[in-house]
């Protein structure tokens, strides 16, 4: 009997997995909203839109050095916000 990948993948999409994916999206959105606008801007342009440092610098009208420092600080703050939010979720459970 051949392994039906399509059937297997479809069977992985359950109401539970959809709910979990939705929770994570909400968690990430809330965490992004805690960032200052400049940090949020560079994270979105880099991680979601895939622009290079030079392109981000041109779009945001900031030096490349500022893109680099903002990105490293934004990532750090985002990880911190996500960790806090996950701790709160576990406490509620």
């Amino acid at each position, binding site marked *: 009997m051949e392994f039906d990948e399509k059937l297997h993948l479809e069977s992985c999409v359950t109401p539970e997995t959809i709910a979990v994916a939705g929770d994570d999206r909400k968690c990430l959105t809330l965490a992004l909203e805690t960032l200052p606008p400049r940090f949020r801007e560079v994270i979105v342009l880099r991680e979601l839109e895939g622009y290079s440092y030079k392109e981000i610098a041109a779009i945001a009208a900031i030096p490349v050095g500022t893109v680099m420092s903002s990105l490293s600080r934004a990532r750090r703050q985002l990880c911190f916000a*996500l960790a806090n939010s996950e701790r709160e979720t576990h406490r509620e459970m």
Partner: protein
Amino acid sequence: MKCDFGDFFLHSYFDGELSVGPAAEFDRHVLHCADCAEELVSLDFLRVRLQLAELHEPAPASLRRRIRVDLGFGAPPRVPACPPLLWHWLAAAATLLLIVIVGWRVNPEPSRDDYQAELAEEIVDAHLRSLQPGLMTGIASNDEHAVKGWFDGKVKFALPVRDFGNDGFTLQGGHLNIVEGRTMAALVYDQGGHLINVFIWPTREPDTSPRRGSRKGYQWVDWRRRKMEFCAVSDADPLELDRLHQLIAE
């Protein structure tokens, strides 16, 4: 971030923004640095999580092209491939552990000479990095006092800053580097159009006579004197590097 080297280069490396030489150096660094390997895993995880969450509708390709053209970037640049995914860093961490175990069993006490040669090769890579415009910051001056003053407060050791312009080695300035986790001062000289970086850092090892080598077409000469280690790197003639060594060591 516990690693100074990672603090400086890690995010650029992760985003594929380092050029070939520094990226290759960071590849090698990750094999020896658990902190950086762990940080890369975290960044990778964050990126994957953000992308899978489908937080927004990505801009259509036509809009992205128009934005790039309007910004003056023309055709989309060749963005280097992102570093491999999570499994690569786990494999790197496992490889690191294996190397440490095998290295300890085969050679529990590595030779000091081997280590000196290996470090010199890392320094050649730092020299290459310093040649890239915009990547290094420092002081550009042929005034000994200005260059020495720039290093005050930045390094915890006394630097023998001298201009040897009368002997054909004109002081050009200086900058700071992190190599294998050590802070090194670098004095820059010009010898007939060839840039020479002299990397300097404190050591507890005894004095040594000069050791020479080459890597990627660049010559290096390394020596220790009075609790300081020096490594001069350049594409200049090796005899000229020897001359500079003699001038500095006097």
